[in-house]
Structures are given as structure tokens and as C-alpha cells.
């Protein structure tokens, strides 16, 4: 049972990662890619870590796995923010659909 749940979560995570990568490759500009990344890969990481946590045979390991996630979230949020600010400061204009 746990194994199935775990596997499902892993696959879900893999899907989110894939979506993030597609976003990175296909989205038109910096800000949209940033959006895709920050959302999707954190979800992917969350799912993967969650899936693994189900397999953990002791609490410490599970806790550690679940500690990694918020940490990655915070870091990713901060970096996204920094990148966006910096891009703005450097005069990068967000993409609009009607352009081009």
C-alpha cells in the first residue's frame, strides 16, 4: 500500500519536474519562466520528498526529508524574488502577448 502511494507520488513529482523543464524551455520570457519554475519544481520536489518520506523506516529520516522541502521553498522564493527584482532593475521588460 505504502509502496504504491510512494510510487505514485514519485511519478507525480517527476511529472511536475517535467512540466517545469518544459516551461523553462518553452515559455517566452524570463518572468514567465520564473513563474513556471518556482511553482512547478517545488511541487515536484515536494512530491518526490513526500513519496520518499513514506518509505522512511524511522521518524528522523522522514523529518529530515520534510525539512528539506520548506527549506527549498524558502530558498526558491527568495531567489525568484531576487531575480525578478534584479531583472526589473536592469530594465528587462516583461513579455506581453500582443507584442510580436
Amino acid at each position, binding site marked *: 500500500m505504502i509502496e504504491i502511494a510512494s510510487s505514485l507520488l514519485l*511519478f507525480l513529482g517527476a511529472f511536475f519536474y517535467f512540466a517545469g523543464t518544459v516551461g523553462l524551455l518553452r515559455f517566452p520570457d524570463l518572468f514567465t519562466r520564473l513563474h513556471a519554475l518556482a511553482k512547478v*519544481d517545488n511541487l515536484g520536489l515536494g512530491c518526490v520528498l513526500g513519496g520518499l518520506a513514506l518509505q522512511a523506516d524511522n521518524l528522523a529520516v522522514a523529518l*529530515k526529508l520534510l525539512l528539506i522541502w520548506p527549506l527549498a521553498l524558502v530558498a526558491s522564493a527568495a531567489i525568484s524574488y531576487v531575480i525578478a527584482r534584479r531583472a526589473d532593475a536592469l530594465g528587462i521588460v516583461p513579455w506581453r502577448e500582443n507584442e510580436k
Partner: protein
Amino acid sequence: MTGFELPVALFLLANLAASLWRVLRGPGDANRLLAALLFGSTGVGILALLAFSQTPAATPLLDVALTLALLAAITAIAFAQRAWQRGTDPKRADD
């Protein structure tokens, strides 16, 4: 261990390879930085998966994953602060 860890890790690594293309192509430093960001979180994921790809789980690799999660931000911030400046902005023709 469900037996899927390693295939999923392989899949993530393939993702990583794909985003490496973004690093190489750009355009501009900002996009490369994004890719690096993705590298960080994908790397954490892969390490966690590798930890559980064997029995018993190689929990020390979780420490590695944790380190990466803690410190990946530093490189990104340093890049944003130090490397990414006017003159290297994405509008410039990618050299």
C-alpha cells in the same frame, strides 16, 4: 525501496540535461540563472531519490540533499549580485 527511485532519478537527470540546453543557449544570463535554479531543486530531488534507491536507504545522501538545498541559494544570489550586471543583460546579442 520501490524500484522506481532510480528510473525517476534518471528521468530527472534527463530533465536536467534538457535544462542544460537552456544554460548553454541562454539567451542572456538571467535565463541561465533560472536553469541553475532548476538544477538546484532537481539535484536535491535526485539525491533524495538516490538515497532511497538502495536498501537500506543511504540516509547520508539526505544530508547531501539538505546541504544542497541550504546552499544552492547562495550561488544563485551571488550570481545575481555579482555576475549579472548591466552589459550582460539578455538584450545584448548572445555571444
